[in-house]
């Protein structure tokens, strides 16, 4: 069983996160960069299976040179090896380009199962796992609150607006997990010290046989502006019909 876990370096959600208004890209210098929390949960799902079964866990990221730090964290937690997709031509890559590159890397590396977080805390696209599954032509089971992996299949629960559903798929497959899925372990001291000795493969676009000159994004950002300052919310004072007013307010916002 070979499991690829997708990990991403994101700005720490504890700090202020800002965009570079000139490029429309994330300002990486304005906050600490960390492994996305949801990726730690995805990795925990893989490692929990590995604890009791024969499995190889590979952490895969696409990102700038600094992303090697989060690969080291994934290796410290227990991943066996890592793949770093590193290429200057990938700066500003959108979801379509990212999915193309990751799918190519997964194909090159080989896999039985790909586990991702349901959405990143920075881009919050939430569609990358589906896009990758589509490009690979394998089944997808996304937004899983729990995951059960067996030697030839994967299953799990997904909460829906009206209840929940159980999904099953034979392998190979792509799954994405929610914050409910697993509580990630801390890396222990030995894991931290061994992380550096584990293999990290770096692949460029050329290594993947992809066109380095292709556009990294299919849309163009024409304008960016800072987030407007917060304004005071709506206050409903009860003059006998507050219940109605509240219901109307929520309905207008499509909240009920």
């Amino acid at each position, binding site marked *: 069983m070979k499991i690829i876990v997708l990990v991403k370096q994101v700005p720490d959600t504890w700090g202020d996160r800002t965009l570079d208004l000139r490029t429309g890209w994330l300002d990486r210098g304005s906050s600490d960069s960390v492994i996305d929390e949801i990726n730690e949960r995805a990795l925990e799902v893989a490692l929990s299976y590995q604890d009791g079964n024969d499995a190889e866990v590979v952490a895969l990221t696409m990102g700038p040179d600094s992303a090697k730090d989060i690969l*080291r964290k994934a290796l410290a937690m227990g991943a066996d090896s890592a793949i770093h997709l590193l290429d200057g031509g990938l700066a500003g890559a959108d979801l379509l380009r990212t999915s193309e590159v990751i799918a190519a890397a997964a194909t090159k590396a080989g896999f039985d199962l790909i586990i991702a977080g349901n959405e990143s805390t920075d881009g919050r696209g939430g569609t990358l796992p589906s896009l990758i599954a589509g490009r690979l032509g394998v089944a997808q089971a996304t937004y899983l609150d729990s995951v059960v992996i067996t030697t030839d299949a994967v299953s799990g629960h997904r909460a829906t607006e009206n209840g929940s559903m159980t999904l099953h798929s034979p392998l190979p497959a792509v799954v994405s997990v929610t914050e409910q899925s697993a509580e990630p372990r*801390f*890396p*222990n*001291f*030995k894991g931290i*010290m061994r992380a*550096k000795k584990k293999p990290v493969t770096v692949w460029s676009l050329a290594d993947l046989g992809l066109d380095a000159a292709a556009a990294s994004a299919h849309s163009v950002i024409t304008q960016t502006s800072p987030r407007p300052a917060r304004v005071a919310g709506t206050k409903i004072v009860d003059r006998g019909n507050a219940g109605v007013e509240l219901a109307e307010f929520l309905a207008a916002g499509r909240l009920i």
Partner: protein
Amino acid sequence: MFQLSEDQRDLVAMVRDFATSSLAPHAVEWDQTKHFPIDVLEEAGSLGMGGIYVQEDVGGSGLTRSDAAHIFEELAKGDPTIAAYISIHNMVAWMIDSFGNTDQRKKWVPDLAAMTSLGSYCLTEPDAGSDAGALRTKAVRDGDDYVLNGVKQFISGAGCSSVYVVMARTSDTGNQGISAIVVPAETPGLSFGPNEKKMGWNAMPTAQVIFHNVRVPVGNLLGAEGDGFGIAMKGLNGGRINMGACSLGGAQWALDQTVAYLKERKAFGKPLIDQQALVFELADMDTELETARTMIWRAADALDRGAPDLVKLCAMAKRVATDAGFSVANRAIQLHGGYGYLSEYGIEKVVRDLRVHQILEGSNEIMRLIIGRTLADVH
């Protein structure tokens, strides 16, 4: 030496996550309820904190004393008491790992390293503290056993630990008559006094350990007969660095809280941080901690290298860091005003916890004696 390596940054980051999530939220409650969190210690053990500088073949983490200094400072930011207990436990694990034979190491160290069993260090007696060579607990050889009689005082973890490393007198020849003997908790004749009521360090038990015809095999002797005093003193070198590091962590936390408070608290129309007199006080506190930190790192480096002046440097670092730690934390109360005196804010707890660091692992008077003797011997 004056900059953390990449490995050390990763180690510290993990310890910070652990201390922030598993220690800090409970520290005040554990103090107030005198709760010894054995389950959390086991979690710490699973992360490698039970045998930080124990060799890897018996489950240790195989790290350096310098690594440990960073680890203990970070742990103490979450709770100085638990950090300090983990230091004591590590001293026990390290003693058996360093001075035990193969059988002893394999028998006791793996569980200690995992913290599924806890360790206590038994040196001090009711009438022998700083003058450790005056200890009177006896271990009398009887066939293939030693029979121990006596009382040990102020023993951290007493009653909860599974393994007691006991310094006992095997002959009446002063320091050379002391031997280090491992006594398992289940040994008949071993009993404990009541949990002492004390100023701080409430989240760990402190009690007398009482030996009444306690019989253990001679195979429980660490090293040779008469090695005990040397083993005890060697253990304390590292213990002093760790306690200093724990003082740094507790005080750094108190200083960080204070800076945040002074930025937020307004008086006379502006935040307190705008009062130059208070900023000068903060600057002094920060400088004293950084000075102490430099000493701790240097002493840890000396211990890692086995430098000839390591005993002196460890003593100096312990004295400087534990004095600075208490002083800074105490001033943090003052800068918090009445709120610093309330238990809820956690500052007064840290002050109570750090106070004892000036007394134990060799009192700070003994540190000066050790330093002074090196001068007297040279000339």
